[in-house]
């Protein structure tokens, strides 16, 4: 039976996970683009990403591009599965 995931259910984290789910599988999204699209500050986004990373739902990769730091984010297989289960649980509550 699908269960609500309390880590994902927090509003900002729900939006972060949804945004990453919008990309093709095995894709990575730039940290700045995500923050700008979701209208979240760097600090706020960073804190939520840390929670999601610790849960194993999101992978964070830091690198340098043209001598500037770049952070790429991707959703893990576990994160994808938990998100789908979470959505299923929400649908069940709604009776959809």
């Amino acid at each position: 039976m699908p269960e609500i995931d309390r880590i994902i259910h927090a509003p900002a984290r729900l939006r972060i996970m949804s945004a990453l789910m919008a990309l093709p599988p095995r894709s990575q999204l730039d940290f700045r683009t995500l923050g700008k699209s979701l209208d979240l500050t760097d600090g706020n986004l960073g804190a939520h990403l840390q929670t999601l990373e610790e849960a194993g739902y999101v992978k964070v990769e830091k690198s340098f591009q043209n001598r500037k730091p770049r952070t790429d984010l991707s959703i893990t297989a576990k994160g994808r599965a938990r998100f789908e289960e979470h959505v299923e649980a929400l649908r069940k509550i709604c009776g959809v």
Partner: protein
Amino acid sequence: METKEPAPITQDEARASLNEINRTIGQMRKAVAAKGAPLLIIWGIIWIIGFGCLQFFPGVSGPVWMVLDIVGVAASFLIGPWSRNSPVKSPLHGRMGLSWLILFAYGVIWLELLVPWGVLHHGGWAAHSLLMGRKFAAFSATLCMFAYVIMGLWLDRYIMWLGVFVTIATLLGYLFLPNYFFLWLAITGGGALAGTGLFVRKFWR
């Protein structure tokens, strides 16, 4: 010490969460599409200039198209979704870039078979044969749009519909407006590419 159980999620809350998920997914797809809009605008302008030149100055259109193609390919490498600066990195993008190169090679092979290079090279093929010029243009335009349709099936449906629209417009112009075919392609094809790019850039940010 007793740990507090989280309150159960109500139907309204669950519905609001589902709406938020759908809204965010749509918003993210549009934001990513908006990053690719400049490339559409550039190719739209290239079509407007190139086909406009074919209509009004056919004698010089060969070299003009060569320069425009170089500019377009360079821009595609620099700002396309497969470029290093793209906000989204996907294994799909590398394959997409490779598919465009293969399609380009395929187009060159077939054009060489249909219209030998010598005819293209000496004095402007469009000036020599208007019919051949129209066939050449219709083939090139629909080949590009075929790639848009396939790309749209994988990435975003708006690219697919753009490809379908320009393909239909190309065929209609070829069949019913032979004397103004290049101008028609500049307006409908170039206009659709640039117009879609401008729309996506302005409203899908």
